[in-house]
């Protein structure tokens, strides 16, 4: 029984002629005396035969001339530049390669952003700014001052003097009288 299992493992290779002479002989001898293994061999041969005849019958319907004319048309057909670019992109960015795109883009982006730390003076003067951003809940102005050379950002809260004067007067006017 164990012998049969081993033989059936090798029948495919035996049919393909991929076994050495000794192995091949032992399988031939076994098949001569074992009905079950002979049946397994016949099954494999039938599968191969049916598949081959099915595909062969199909292929014989493909006449050369129409096939060749169609091919000639495609060879002569000038593809537009964007079709060529699309084709090249499809060939280049296969699924496995595209999987690297996201981490690679992140790495490039981080490298560009960190250039500022490694190249002194890069982007100098571009991002130094000072602006009044808003007025906070207590009525104070919030200013954001950024100095690129020293890489410092100062958040400056200050109160408008005029506003303070106006609000300073109001409590006096609306002060409750006892």
């Amino acid at each position, binding site marked *: 029984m164990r012998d049969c299992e081993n033989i059936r*493992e090798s029948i*495919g*290779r035996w049919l*393909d002629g*991929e076994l050495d002479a000794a192995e091949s002989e032992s399988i031939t001898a076994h098949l001569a005396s074992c009905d079950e293994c002979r049946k*397994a061999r*016949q*099954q*494999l041969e*039938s*599968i*191969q035969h*049916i*598949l*081959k005849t*099915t*595909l*062969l*019958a*199909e*292929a*014989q*319907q*493909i006449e*050369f001339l129409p*096939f*060749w004319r*169609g*091919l000639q048309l*495609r*060879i002569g057909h000038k593809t537009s530049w964007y079709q060529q670019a699309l084709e090249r992109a499809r060939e280049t960015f296969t699924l496995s390669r595209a999987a690297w795109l996201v981490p690679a883009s992140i790495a490039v982006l981080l490298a560009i952003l960190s250039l500022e730390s490694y190249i002194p003076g890069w982007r100098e003067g571009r991002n130094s700014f000072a602006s009044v951003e808003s007025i906070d809940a207590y009525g104070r102005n919030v200013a954001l001052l950024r100095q690129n050379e020293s890489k410092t950002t100062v958040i400056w809260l200050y109160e408008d003097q005029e506003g303070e004067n106006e609000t300073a007067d109001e409590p006096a006017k609306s002060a409750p009288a006892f």
Partner: protein
Amino acid sequence: MASFQELVSRYHQKVYMVILGLLHNRDDALEVAQETFLRAYRKIGSFAGGSSFYTWIYRIAVNLAIDAQRRQKRNPLDFRETMDGVLEAQEETARDPFADVHDRELRENLIRAINELTPEHKAVIVLRTIEGLSYKDIGEILGCSEGTVMSRLHYARKKLQDKLSAFL
């Protein structure tokens, strides 16, 4: 161009058979077969004389067919239609009116069983069956080792045998 025409005339049916074995749809197989020769024509300069022309052309064909099959698999409706194409063609060409119901059933089930294999398993079965290529050549075409070809063939045959044992 005349020598290229000679190559196409020699290989077009075999290339078509391999692709049809993978795609199971005549129109798609014809389209991919023409694309295969178009690529071969454009890239003939990159063909290294070290390998034989048929391994080179089959490699292009198998890669294009596997790509096409992956696109098919993303659309299950198209995939179902693919099986009917080949079966209908077989019925049209059957000369015996009784056309051997058993044979037809077996063919249908064989195509269905092959369709359930992965593209890589399908490719080894088709290349081995159609051309009787050696494991070495199949490995060269698919870009894998002889050992891998051997184990894929064994697995694919076992699957087909299991699915078809009732009909064989």
